[in-house]
Protein backbone atom coordinates (compact mmCIF):
# COMPACT_ATOMS: atom_id res chain seq x y z
CA UNK A 1 0.00 0.00 0.00
CA UNK A 2 1.10 3.57 -0.57
CA UNK A 3 3.05 5.54 1.96
CA UNK A 4 0.08 7.91 2.08
CA UNK A 5 -2.14 5.11 3.21
CA UNK A 6 0.35 4.02 5.82
CA UNK A 7 0.52 7.46 7.32
CA UNK A 8 -3.16 8.19 7.00
CA UNK A 9 -4.31 4.91 8.42
CA UNK A 10 -1.88 5.34 11.22
CA UNK A 11 -3.36 8.74 11.89
CA UNK A 12 -6.72 7.09 12.19
CA UNK A 13 -5.79 4.22 14.37
CA UNK A 14 -2.46 4.91 16.01
CA UNK A 15 -1.85 8.50 16.93
CA UNK A 16 -4.14 8.90 19.92
CA UNK A 17 -2.29 7.84 23.06
CA UNK A 18 -4.50 5.59 25.03
CA UNK A 19 -5.70 6.29 28.50
CA UNK A 20 -7.36 4.15 31.04
CA UNK A 21 -11.06 4.12 31.68
CA UNK A 22 -12.06 6.90 34.02
CA UNK A 23 -15.67 6.19 34.86
CA UNK A 24 -15.05 3.27 37.21
CA UNK A 25 -11.84 4.93 38.44
CA UNK A 26 -14.13 7.29 40.34
CA UNK A 27 -15.08 4.48 42.71
CA UNK A 28 -11.58 3.25 43.45
CA UNK A 29 -10.43 4.58 46.84
CA UNK A 30 -7.22 6.52 47.30
CA UNK A 31 -4.31 4.14 47.15
CA UNK A 32 -6.11 1.30 45.35
CA UNK A 33 -5.81 2.24 41.69
CA UNK A 34 -4.34 -0.87 40.04
CA UNK A 35 -0.97 -0.30 38.46
CA UNK A 36 -1.05 3.37 39.48
CA UNK A 37 -1.11 3.79 43.24
CA UNK A 38 2.28 3.31 44.79
CA UNK A 39 4.07 3.79 41.49
CA UNK A 40 5.77 6.72 39.83
CA UNK A 41 2.49 7.37 38.02
CA UNK A 42 0.92 8.92 41.11
CA UNK A 43 1.55 10.56 44.44
CA UNK A 44 -0.43 10.25 47.64
CA UNK A 45 -0.18 12.77 50.40
CA UNK A 46 -1.75 15.70 52.19
CA UNK A 47 -2.61 18.82 50.24
CA UNK A 48 -0.50 21.66 51.63
CA UNK A 49 -1.78 24.47 49.45
CA UNK A 50 -4.04 25.18 46.52
CA UNK A 51 -3.58 28.12 44.15
CA UNK A 52 -6.86 28.51 42.30
CA UNK A 53 -5.54 31.32 40.10
CA UNK A 54 -2.47 29.39 39.00
CA UNK A 55 -4.47 26.15 39.01
CA UNK A 56 -1.88 24.30 41.02
CA UNK A 57 -1.81 22.32 44.22
CA UNK A 58 1.11 21.43 46.43
CA UNK A 59 0.95 17.99 47.92
CA UNK A 60 3.22 16.59 50.61
CA UNK A 61 4.24 13.29 49.12
CA UNK A 62 6.58 10.67 50.51
CA UNK A 63 9.50 12.23 48.61
CA UNK A 64 8.64 15.70 49.78
CA UNK A 65 6.28 18.38 48.55
CA UNK A 66 5.44 18.47 44.87
CA UNK A 67 3.53 21.12 42.96
CA UNK A 68 1.19 19.86 40.30
CA UNK A 69 -0.98 21.73 37.83
CA UNK A 70 -4.56 20.81 37.10
CA UNK A 71 -6.37 21.60 33.89
CA UNK A 72 -9.86 21.58 32.44
CA UNK A 73 -9.44 17.90 31.62
CA UNK A 74 -8.29 16.89 35.11
CA UNK A 75 -10.96 14.77 36.77
CA UNK A 76 -11.56 15.42 40.44
CA UNK A 77 -13.31 12.81 42.54
CA UNK A 78 -14.24 12.81 46.20
CA UNK A 79 -13.40 9.52 47.87
CA UNK A 80 -16.02 8.85 50.54
CA UNK A 81 -15.34 5.14 50.92
CA UNK A 82 -14.13 5.64 54.49
CA UNK A 83 -17.54 7.08 55.29
CA UNK A 84 -19.18 4.12 53.51
CA UNK A 85 -20.66 6.51 51.00
CA UNK A 86 -20.59 6.69 47.26
CA UNK A 87 -17.75 8.54 45.56
CA UNK A 88 -18.69 11.87 44.05
CA UNK A 89 -17.57 13.78 41.01
CA UNK A 90 -15.89 16.90 42.34
CA UNK A 91 -14.24 19.99 40.95
CA UNK A 92 -11.13 22.03 41.65
CA UNK A 93 -13.09 23.96 44.26
CA UNK A 94 -13.13 20.76 46.34
CA UNK A 95 -9.35 20.77 46.57
CA UNK A 96 -8.74 21.91 50.13
CA UNK A 97 -5.52 22.13 52.10
CA UNK A 98 -5.21 19.59 54.84
CA UNK A 99 -7.06 16.86 52.98
CA UNK A 100 -5.46 13.62 51.92
CA UNK A 101 -5.37 13.17 48.18
CA UNK A 102 -3.97 11.05 45.39
CA UNK A 103 -2.85 12.60 42.13
CA UNK A 104 -2.19 10.62 38.97
CA UNK A 105 0.14 12.35 36.54
CA UNK A 106 -0.57 12.72 32.85
CA UNK A 107 3.02 11.68 32.23
CA UNK A 108 4.93 9.89 34.99
CA UNK A 109 8.21 11.04 33.45
CA UNK A 110 7.07 14.66 33.92
CA UNK A 111 5.00 14.76 37.11
CA UNK A 112 3.73 18.27 36.55
CA UNK A 113 0.17 17.91 35.35
CA UNK A 114 -2.62 16.00 37.02
CA UNK A 115 -4.58 13.47 35.01
CA UNK A 116 -6.94 12.91 37.89
CA UNK A 117 -7.16 13.83 41.56
CA UNK A 118 -8.94 11.90 44.30
CA UNK A 119 -9.53 13.81 47.50
CA UNK A 120 -10.66 12.29 50.73
CA UNK A 121 -14.17 13.24 51.70
CA UNK A 122 -14.74 15.15 54.86
Amino acid at each position, binding site marked *: *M*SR*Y*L*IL*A*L*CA*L*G*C*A*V*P*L*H*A*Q*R*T*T*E*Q*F*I*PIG*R*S*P*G*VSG*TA*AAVIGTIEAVDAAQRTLRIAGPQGPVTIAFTDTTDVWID*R*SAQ*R*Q*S*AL*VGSPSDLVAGRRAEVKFVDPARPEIADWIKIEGS
Partner: protein
Amino acid sequence: MASRFRISFVAVVLQLVLLAVACRRPPPPPPDDPISRGERLFFEETFDGNGRTCGSCHRAEDNFTLSPAFIASLPPDDPLFIAETNPDLAQGFENPRLMREFGMILENLDGFADLPNVFTMRGIPHTLAQGSSVASAAGPRTGWSGDGAPGDGTLRSFATGAVIQHFTRTFARVPGQDFRLPTEEELDDLEAFMLSLGRQQDLALPLPLRGTVAARGQQIFIDPTLGKCNACHSNAGANADPAVFGPGAGNLSFNTGVENLPDQPADLTGELVPPDDGFGVPGNGEFNTPPVVEAADTGPFFHNNSIETIEGAVAFYNGAAFNESPAGILLRNATGSGIVLDGTQVVAVAAFLRVINALENIRQTLAYLDESGTAHPDRAARQLRLAAEETNDAIEVLAGAGLHPAGVRHLGVAKDAIDNAAASTGRRTVRIDDAVAALEQARADLVST
Protein backbone atom coordinates in the same frame (compact mmCIF):
# COMPACT_ATOMS: atom_id res chain seq x y z
CA MET B 1 -27.86 -72.98 56.37
CA ALA B 2 -29.96 -70.03 55.24
CA SER B 3 -28.78 -67.92 58.16
CA ARG B 4 -25.15 -68.81 57.42
CA PHE B 5 -25.71 -67.73 53.81
CA ARG B 6 -27.26 -64.47 54.97
CA ILE B 7 -24.34 -63.77 57.29
CA SER B 8 -21.83 -64.50 54.52
CA PHE B 9 -23.74 -62.31 52.08
CA VAL B 10 -23.86 -59.41 54.52
CA ALA B 11 -20.16 -59.83 55.26
CA VAL B 12 -19.31 -59.70 51.57
CA VAL B 13 -21.43 -56.60 51.07
CA LEU B 14 -19.82 -54.94 54.07
CA GLN B 15 -16.38 -55.72 52.74
CA LEU B 16 -17.27 -54.28 49.36
CA VAL B 17 -18.58 -51.10 50.97
CA LEU B 18 -15.46 -50.71 53.04
CA LEU B 19 -13.33 -51.29 49.96
CA ALA B 20 -15.25 -48.62 48.03
CA VAL B 21 -14.83 -46.12 50.85
CA ALA B 22 -11.12 -46.86 51.07
CA CYS B 23 -10.72 -46.46 47.30
CA ARG B 24 -12.54 -43.14 47.10
CA ARG B 25 -9.75 -40.65 47.09
CA PRO B 26 -10.40 -37.30 48.59
CA PRO B 27 -9.80 -34.54 46.08
CA PRO B 28 -6.23 -33.31 46.11
CA PRO B 29 -5.59 -29.77 47.28
CA PRO B 30 -6.19 -27.30 44.47
CA PRO B 31 -3.11 -26.41 42.40
CA ASP B 32 -1.36 -23.31 43.70
CA ASP B 33 -0.03 -21.75 40.53
CA PRO B 34 -1.20 -18.34 39.27
CA ILE B 35 -3.26 -19.73 36.39
CA SER B 36 -5.10 -22.21 38.60
CA ARG B 37 -5.71 -19.58 41.27
CA GLY B 38 -6.86 -17.19 38.58
CA GLU B 39 -9.24 -19.77 37.21
CA ARG B 40 -10.83 -20.26 40.60
CA LEU B 41 -11.16 -16.50 41.02
CA PHE B 42 -12.63 -16.12 37.55
CA PHE B 43 -15.37 -18.70 38.05
CA GLU B 44 -15.95 -18.71 41.81
CA GLU B 45 -15.09 -15.35 43.35
CA THR B 46 -17.98 -12.94 43.79
CA PHE B 47 -15.87 -10.21 45.40
CA ASP B 48 -18.61 -9.84 48.02
CA GLY B 49 -20.89 -8.36 45.41
CA ASN B 50 -24.23 -9.28 43.94
CA GLY B 51 -23.35 -12.92 43.32
CA ARG B 52 -21.88 -12.59 39.86
CA THR B 53 -18.44 -13.83 38.97
CA CYS B 54 -16.36 -13.11 35.90
CA GLY B 55 -17.66 -16.41 34.61
CA SER B 56 -21.24 -15.21 34.86
CA CYS B 57 -20.75 -13.40 31.57
CA HIS B 58 -17.62 -15.08 30.22
CA ARG B 59 -18.77 -18.70 30.12
CA ALA B 60 -16.22 -21.37 29.44
CA GLU B 61 -18.94 -23.46 27.78
CA ASP B 62 -19.77 -20.60 25.41
CA ASN B 63 -16.28 -19.65 24.29
CA PHE B 64 -15.87 -17.21 27.18
CA THR B 65 -18.63 -15.00 25.87
CA LEU B 66 -22.40 -15.24 26.14
CA SER B 67 -24.81 -15.76 23.29
CA PRO B 68 -28.58 -15.35 23.42
CA ALA B 69 -28.92 -19.11 22.91
CA PHE B 70 -26.81 -19.83 25.96
CA ILE B 71 -28.60 -17.18 27.99
CA ALA B 72 -31.88 -18.92 27.17
CA SER B 73 -30.56 -22.10 28.78
CA LEU B 74 -29.85 -20.49 32.15
CA PRO B 75 -32.15 -20.84 35.14
CA PRO B 76 -34.02 -17.70 36.22
CA ASP B 77 -32.00 -17.40 39.41
CA ASP B 78 -28.64 -17.29 37.65
CA PRO B 79 -26.62 -14.29 38.89
CA LEU B 80 -26.51 -13.01 35.32
CA PHE B 81 -30.14 -12.04 35.82
CA ILE B 82 -29.53 -10.14 39.04
CA ALA B 83 -31.30 -7.07 37.68
CA GLU B 84 -34.48 -9.13 37.45
CA THR B 85 -34.25 -10.49 40.99
CA ASN B 86 -32.66 -7.72 43.05
CA PRO B 87 -34.93 -4.69 43.56
CA ASP B 88 -31.89 -2.49 44.26
CA LEU B 89 -30.70 -3.10 40.71
CA ALA B 90 -34.03 -3.27 38.90
CA GLN B 91 -33.71 0.02 37.01
CA GLY B 92 -30.55 1.07 35.24
CA PHE B 93 -28.31 -1.93 35.84
CA GLU B 94 -29.21 -4.08 32.85
CA ASN B 95 -31.92 -4.23 30.19
CA PRO B 96 -33.33 -7.74 30.60
CA ARG B 97 -35.06 -7.72 27.25
CA LEU B 98 -31.91 -6.77 25.34
CA MET B 99 -29.86 -9.18 27.41
CA ARG B 100 -32.10 -12.15 26.73
CA GLU B 101 -32.89 -11.39 23.11
CA PHE B 102 -29.53 -10.09 21.88
CA GLY B 103 -26.97 -10.93 24.56
CA MET B 104 -26.33 -7.29 25.41
CA ILE B 105 -24.90 -5.94 28.65
CA LEU B 106 -25.24 -2.43 30.01
CA GLU B 107 -22.08 -0.36 30.52
CA ASN B 108 -21.83 3.15 31.99
CA LEU B 109 -18.75 4.14 30.07
CA ASP B 110 -19.79 7.79 29.96
CA GLY B 111 -20.31 8.05 33.69
CA PHE B 112 -22.80 7.11 36.35
CA ALA B 113 -24.52 10.45 36.82
CA ASP B 114 -27.63 9.66 34.80
CA LEU B 115 -28.23 5.94 34.92
CA PRO B 116 -31.63 5.89 33.17
CA ASN B 117 -30.37 7.77 30.13
CA VAL B 118 -26.58 7.58 29.86
CA PHE B 119 -25.28 4.12 29.11
CA THR B 120 -24.19 1.86 26.29
CA MET B 121 -25.44 -1.58 25.37
CA ARG B 122 -22.70 -3.91 24.23
CA GLY B 123 -22.10 -7.54 23.51
CA ILE B 124 -19.80 -9.50 25.76
CA PRO B 125 -16.37 -9.82 24.15
CA HIS B 126 -14.72 -13.20 24.47
CA THR B 127 -11.52 -13.40 26.49
CA LEU B 128 -9.62 -15.71 24.15
CA ALA B 129 -6.18 -15.04 22.63
CA GLN B 130 -5.71 -11.86 24.64
CA GLY B 131 -1.99 -12.39 24.78
CA SER B 132 -1.83 -11.44 21.10
CA SER B 133 -4.81 -9.10 20.93
CA VAL B 134 -4.52 -6.13 23.26
CA ALA B 135 -1.01 -4.74 22.93
CA SER B 136 -0.39 -1.71 20.75
CA ALA B 137 2.26 0.93 20.29
CA ALA B 138 -0.05 3.41 22.02
CA GLY B 139 -0.71 1.18 25.01
CA PRO B 140 -3.01 -1.74 25.77
CA ARG B 141 -6.49 -1.73 24.28
CA THR B 142 -9.00 -3.61 26.39
CA GLY B 143 -12.70 -4.02 25.88
CA TRP B 144 -14.69 -2.99 22.85
CA SER B 145 -13.54 0.62 22.78
CA GLY B 146 -9.98 0.04 23.92
CA ASP B 147 -10.45 1.87 27.21
CA GLY B 148 -11.97 -0.90 29.26
CA ALA B 149 -9.63 -0.90 32.25
CA PRO B 150 -9.15 1.70 35.00
CA GLY B 151 -5.86 2.25 36.80
CA ASP B 152 -3.03 1.81 34.35
CA GLY B 153 -5.40 0.63 31.62
CA THR B 154 -3.88 -2.82 31.35
CA LEU B 155 -5.56 -6.20 31.04
CA ARG B 156 -4.41 -6.85 34.61
CA SER B 157 -6.45 -3.89 35.87
CA PHE B 158 -9.53 -4.77 33.86
CA ALA B 159 -11.07 -6.90 36.59
CA THR B 160 -11.19 -3.94 38.96
CA GLY B 161 -13.41 -1.98 36.61
CA ALA B 162 -15.54 -5.02 35.87
CA VAL B 163 -16.22 -5.59 39.55
CA ILE B 164 -17.27 -1.97 40.01
CA GLN B 165 -19.52 -1.98 36.93
CA HIS B 166 -21.05 -5.46 37.09
CA PHE B 167 -20.70 -6.89 40.61
CA THR B 168 -22.14 -4.11 42.73
CA ARG B 169 -24.96 -4.75 45.19
CA THR B 170 -26.39 -1.25 44.81
CA PHE B 171 -25.80 1.80 42.68
CA ALA B 172 -23.83 3.43 45.49
CA ARG B 173 -20.88 1.32 44.43
CA VAL B 174 -19.08 1.69 47.76
CA PRO B 175 -15.99 -0.52 48.06
CA GLY B 176 -16.16 -2.63 51.17
CA GLN B 177 -19.93 -2.42 51.17
CA ASP B 178 -21.27 -3.13 47.67
CA PHE B 179 -18.27 -5.22 46.62
CA ARG B 180 -14.64 -5.61 47.50
CA LEU B 181 -11.91 -4.71 45.09
CA PRO B 182 -9.55 -7.43 43.85
CA THR B 183 -6.23 -7.47 45.67
CA GLU B 184 -2.97 -7.01 43.80
CA GLU B 185 -2.30 -10.73 44.01
CA GLU B 186 -5.76 -11.54 42.70
CA LEU B 187 -5.24 -9.21 39.75
CA ASP B 188 -1.97 -11.01 38.99
CA ASP B 189 -3.69 -14.39 39.06
CA LEU B 190 -6.68 -13.26 37.01
CA GLU B 191 -4.37 -11.85 34.38
CA ALA B 192 -2.38 -15.08 34.27
CA PHE B 193 -5.56 -17.06 33.77
CA MET B 194 -6.96 -14.76 31.09
CA LEU B 195 -3.71 -14.83 29.17
CA SER B 196 -3.75 -18.63 29.26
CA LEU B 197 -7.04 -18.83 27.38
CA GLY B 198 -7.19 -19.82 23.75
CA ARG B 199 -4.53 -19.22 21.13
CA GLN B 200 -1.14 -18.22 22.37
CA GLN B 201 0.07 -16.91 19.03
CA ASP B 202 -1.25 -15.68 15.72
CA LEU B 203 -1.61 -17.88 12.68
CA ALA B 204 0.84 -17.64 9.78
CA LEU B 205 -1.25 -17.13 6.68
CA PRO B 206 -1.67 -18.46 4.11
CA LEU B 207 -2.63 -21.85 5.46
CA PRO B 208 -2.67 -24.85 3.09
CA LEU B 209 -6.44 -25.13 3.21
CA ARG B 210 -8.02 -28.04 1.42
CA GLY B 211 -11.47 -26.62 0.95
CA THR B 212 -11.92 -24.90 -2.39
CA VAL B 213 -14.16 -22.10 -1.24
CA ALA B 214 -12.30 -21.47 2.02
CA ALA B 215 -9.01 -21.33 0.15
CA ARG B 216 -10.43 -18.72 -2.20
CA GLY B 217 -11.78 -16.86 0.82
CA GLN B 218 -8.30 -16.81 2.32
CA GLN B 219 -6.95 -15.33 -0.91
CA ILE B 220 -9.59 -12.60 -0.85
CA PHE B 221 -8.91 -11.97 2.84
CA ILE B 222 -5.22 -11.40 2.23
CA ASP B 223 -5.54 -9.57 -1.12
CA PRO B 224 -4.81 -5.86 -0.52
CA THR B 225 -6.79 -4.92 -3.61
CA LEU B 226 -9.86 -7.03 -2.93
CA GLY B 227 -10.84 -8.02 0.61
CA LYS B 228 -8.14 -5.94 2.28
CA CYS B 229 -9.05 -7.67 5.55
CA ASN B 230 -5.46 -8.52 6.41
CA ALA B 231 -4.56 -4.86 6.76
CA CYS B 232 -6.35 -4.58 10.09
CA HIS B 233 -6.69 -8.29 10.93
CA SER B 234 -3.19 -9.44 10.15
CA ASN B 235 -3.05 -13.23 10.00
CA ALA B 236 -6.72 -13.21 10.96
CA GLY B 237 -5.81 -11.84 14.36
CA ALA B 238 -6.41 -8.53 16.11
CA ASN B 239 -3.25 -6.77 15.06
CA ALA B 240 -2.58 -4.44 12.18
CA ASP B 241 -0.39 -5.50 9.28
CA PRO B 242 3.05 -4.04 9.99
CA ALA B 243 3.59 -3.67 6.27
CA VAL B 244 0.70 -1.22 6.23
CA PHE B 245 0.77 0.41 9.66
CA GLY B 246 4.42 0.13 10.50
CA PRO B 247 6.29 -2.27 12.75
CA GLY B 248 4.86 -2.82 16.19
CA ALA B 249 1.54 -1.08 15.55
CA GLY B 250 -0.22 -3.98 17.22
CA ASN B 251 -3.89 -3.78 17.99
CA LEU B 252 -5.64 -0.70 16.62
CA SER B 253 -9.03 0.95 16.87
CA PHE B 254 -11.10 2.33 14.01
CA ASN B 255 -14.37 4.06 13.34
CA THR B 256 -15.85 1.64 10.86
CA GLY B 257 -19.38 2.99 10.98
CA VAL B 258 -21.02 0.10 12.79
CA GLU B 259 -23.02 2.61 14.81
CA ASN B 260 -24.52 3.91 11.57
CA LEU B 261 -26.01 0.58 10.52
CA PRO B 262 -29.74 0.88 9.86
CA ASP B 263 -32.22 -1.48 11.46
CA GLN B 264 -29.94 -2.55 14.27
CA PRO B 265 -31.74 -5.32 16.13
CA ALA B 266 -31.69 -3.57 19.51
CA ASP B 267 -33.10 -0.40 17.96
CA LEU B 268 -35.99 -2.34 16.43
CA THR B 269 -37.26 -3.21 19.90
CA GLY B 270 -38.09 0.38 20.75
CA GLU B 271 -35.98 0.13 23.91
CA LEU B 272 -33.75 3.10 24.75
CA VAL B 273 -30.37 2.36 23.20
CA PRO B 274 -28.24 5.53 23.32
CA PRO B 275 -25.56 5.93 20.66
CA ASP B 276 -22.22 4.37 21.55
CA ASP B 277 -19.41 6.80 20.81
CA GLY B 278 -16.55 4.41 21.44
CA PHE B 279 -13.18 5.32 22.87
CA GLY B 280 -12.98 8.12 25.41
CA VAL B 281 -15.42 10.51 27.02
CA PRO B 282 -16.76 12.01 24.87
CA GLY B 283 -15.96 9.23 22.47
CA ASN B 284 -14.22 9.47 19.13
CA GLY B 285 -16.30 6.77 17.47
CA GLU B 286 -13.51 4.23 17.43
CA PHE B 287 -13.75 0.63 18.46
CA ASN B 288 -11.12 -1.99 19.07
CA THR B 289 -10.19 -4.54 16.40
CA PRO B 290 -10.96 -8.07 17.60
CA PRO B 291 -9.28 -11.24 16.33
CA VAL B 292 -11.30 -13.10 13.69
CA VAL B 293 -9.96 -16.64 14.19
CA GLU B 294 -12.42 -16.89 17.06
CA ALA B 295 -15.21 -15.09 15.23
CA ALA B 296 -17.35 -17.76 13.60
CA ASP B 297 -18.54 -19.33 16.85
CA THR B 298 -18.67 -16.20 19.01
CA GLY B 299 -21.40 -14.21 17.33
CA PRO B 300 -23.39 -12.00 17.32
CA PHE B 301 -20.83 -9.59 15.95
CA PHE B 302 -19.47 -6.10 16.53
CA HIS B 303 -19.62 -4.15 19.78
CA ASN B 304 -23.41 -3.90 19.65
CA ASN B 305 -24.22 -7.45 18.55
CA SER B 306 -25.86 -5.92 15.51
CA ILE B 307 -25.13 -8.76 13.08
CA GLU B 308 -25.84 -12.40 13.87
CA THR B 309 -24.01 -14.35 11.16
CA ILE B 310 -20.41 -14.42 10.03
CA GLU B 311 -21.56 -13.94 6.44
CA GLY B 312 -23.42 -10.82 7.53
CA ALA B 313 -20.35 -9.55 9.35
CA VAL B 314 -18.24 -9.93 6.21
CA ALA B 315 -20.94 -8.36 4.05
CA PHE B 316 -20.96 -5.33 6.38
CA TYR B 317 -17.80 -4.15 4.70
CA ASN B 318 -19.63 -3.93 1.37
CA GLY B 319 -22.24 -1.60 2.70
CA ALA B 320 -22.68 2.14 3.02
CA ALA B 321 -22.17 2.16 6.78
CA PHE B 322 -18.59 1.01 6.39
CA ASN B 323 -17.71 2.63 3.09
CA GLU B 324 -18.94 6.03 4.30
CA SER B 325 -17.20 5.69 7.67
CA PRO B 326 -13.89 7.43 8.44
CA ALA B 327 -12.08 4.14 8.00
CA GLY B 328 -13.94 3.29 4.82
CA ILE B 329 -13.41 6.70 3.24
CA LEU B 330 -9.72 6.65 3.96
CA LEU B 331 -9.41 3.15 2.55
CA ARG B 332 -11.25 4.18 -0.58
CA ASN B 333 -9.16 7.32 -1.09
CA ALA B 334 -5.93 5.48 -0.54
CA THR B 335 -6.62 2.40 -2.62
CA GLY B 336 -8.96 3.72 -5.25
CA SER B 337 -11.92 1.71 -4.07
CA GLY B 338 -13.77 0.60 -1.01
CA ILE B 339 -14.21 -3.03 -0.20
CA VAL B 340 -16.42 -4.43 -2.93
CA LEU B 341 -17.21 -8.12 -2.72
CA ASP B 342 -19.95 -9.91 -4.57
CA GLY B 343 -22.11 -12.54 -2.94
CA THR B 344 -19.89 -15.49 -3.70
CA GLN B 345 -16.86 -13.64 -2.45
CA VAL B 346 -18.56 -12.76 0.83
CA VAL B 347 -19.41 -16.41 1.29
CA ALA B 348 -15.85 -17.41 0.44
CA VAL B 349 -14.34 -15.11 3.05
CA ALA B 350 -16.88 -16.33 5.58
CA ALA B 351 -15.99 -19.92 4.68
CA PHE B 352 -12.35 -19.13 5.37
CA LEU B 353 -13.28 -17.68 8.75
CA ARG B 354 -15.42 -20.73 9.53
CA VAL B 355 -12.62 -23.14 8.66
CA ILE B 356 -9.94 -21.39 10.69
CA ASN B 357 -12.38 -21.23 13.59
CA ALA B 358 -13.03 -24.94 13.30
CA LEU B 359 -9.29 -25.59 13.25
CA GLU B 360 -8.97 -23.58 16.45
CA ASN B 361 -11.83 -25.54 17.98
CA ILE B 362 -10.00 -28.76 17.12
CA ARG B 363 -6.77 -27.46 18.64
CA GLN B 364 -8.58 -26.45 21.82
CA THR B 365 -10.42 -29.76 22.03
CA LEU B 366 -7.16 -31.65 21.82
CA ALA B 367 -5.77 -29.48 24.62
CA TYR B 368 -8.76 -30.24 26.83
CA LEU B 369 -8.49 -33.96 26.10
CA ASP B 370 -4.79 -33.93 26.85
CA GLU B 371 -5.38 -32.37 30.23
CA SER B 372 -8.29 -34.65 31.06
CA GLY B 373 -5.99 -37.64 30.81
CA THR B 374 -3.92 -36.60 33.81
CA ALA B 375 -6.36 -34.56 35.86
CA HIS B 376 -8.28 -35.44 38.98
CA PRO B 377 -11.61 -37.06 38.04
CA ASP B 378 -13.63 -33.93 38.81
CA ARG B 379 -11.33 -31.81 36.71
CA ALA B 380 -11.22 -34.43 33.97
CA ALA B 381 -15.01 -34.47 33.78
CA ARG B 382 -15.05 -30.71 33.34
CA GLN B 383 -12.39 -30.76 30.65
CA LEU B 384 -14.24 -33.51 28.78
CA ARG B 385 -17.41 -31.46 28.93
CA LEU B 386 -15.59 -28.47 27.47
CA ALA B 387 -13.99 -30.68 24.84
CA ALA B 388 -17.44 -31.82 23.79
CA GLU B 389 -18.61 -28.21 23.54
CA GLU B 390 -15.64 -27.22 21.40
CA THR B 391 -16.18 -30.18 19.08
CA ASN B 392 -19.83 -29.30 18.79
CA ASP B 393 -18.86 -25.73 17.90
CA ALA B 394 -16.65 -27.00 15.10
CA ILE B 395 -19.49 -29.17 13.77
CA GLU B 396 -21.94 -26.29 13.80
CA VAL B 397 -19.50 -23.84 12.26
CA LEU B 398 -18.70 -26.13 9.33
CA ALA B 399 -22.12 -27.68 8.83
CA GLY B 400 -23.73 -24.26 9.04
CA ALA B 401 -22.24 -23.43 5.65
CA GLY B 402 -22.11 -26.90 4.15
CA LEU B 403 -18.35 -27.07 4.50
CA HIS B 404 -16.21 -30.20 4.74
CA PRO B 405 -18.90 -32.87 5.17
CA ALA B 406 -16.27 -35.56 5.64
CA GLY B 407 -14.58 -33.50 8.31
CA VAL B 408 -17.91 -32.93 10.00
CA ARG B 409 -18.47 -36.69 10.05
CA HIS B 410 -15.11 -37.22 11.75
CA LEU B 411 -15.98 -34.51 14.25
CA GLY B 412 -19.21 -36.31 14.97
CA VAL B 413 -17.27 -39.48 15.72
CA ALA B 414 -15.00 -37.48 17.99
CA LYS B 415 -17.96 -35.93 19.79
CA ASP B 416 -19.51 -39.34 20.41
CA ALA B 417 -16.23 -40.68 21.76
CA ILE B 418 -15.85 -37.68 24.06
CA ASP B 419 -19.41 -38.00 25.29
CA ASN B 420 -18.82 -41.68 26.02
CA ALA B 421 -15.58 -40.88 27.81
CA ALA B 422 -17.35 -38.27 29.90
CA ALA B 423 -20.20 -40.62 30.76
CA SER B 424 -18.06 -43.34 32.26
CA THR B 425 -14.53 -43.75 33.55
CA GLY B 426 -14.46 -47.27 32.15
CA ARG B 427 -12.29 -47.42 29.03
CA ARG B 428 -12.03 -43.65 29.19
CA THR B 429 -8.47 -43.63 27.92
CA VAL B 430 -9.41 -45.69 24.90
CA ARG B 431 -12.34 -43.42 24.12
CA ILE B 432 -10.18 -40.33 24.42
CA ASP B 433 -7.68 -41.93 22.05
CA ASP B 434 -10.53 -42.59 19.62
CA ALA B 435 -11.60 -38.96 19.89
CA VAL B 436 -8.09 -37.72 19.24
CA ALA B 437 -7.78 -39.91 16.18
CA ALA B 438 -11.09 -38.65 14.81
CA LEU B 439 -10.10 -35.05 15.48
CA GLU B 440 -6.85 -35.55 13.63
CA GLN B 441 -8.78 -36.96 10.69
CA ALA B 442 -11.11 -33.98 10.75
CA ARG B 443 -8.20 -31.59 10.80
CA ALA B 444 -6.59 -33.41 7.88
CA ASP B 445 -9.78 -32.81 5.93
CA LEU B 446 -9.53 -29.08 6.51
CA VAL B 447 -5.84 -28.38 6.07
CA SER B 448 -2.81 -30.11 4.63
CA THR B 449 0.01 -30.74 7.03
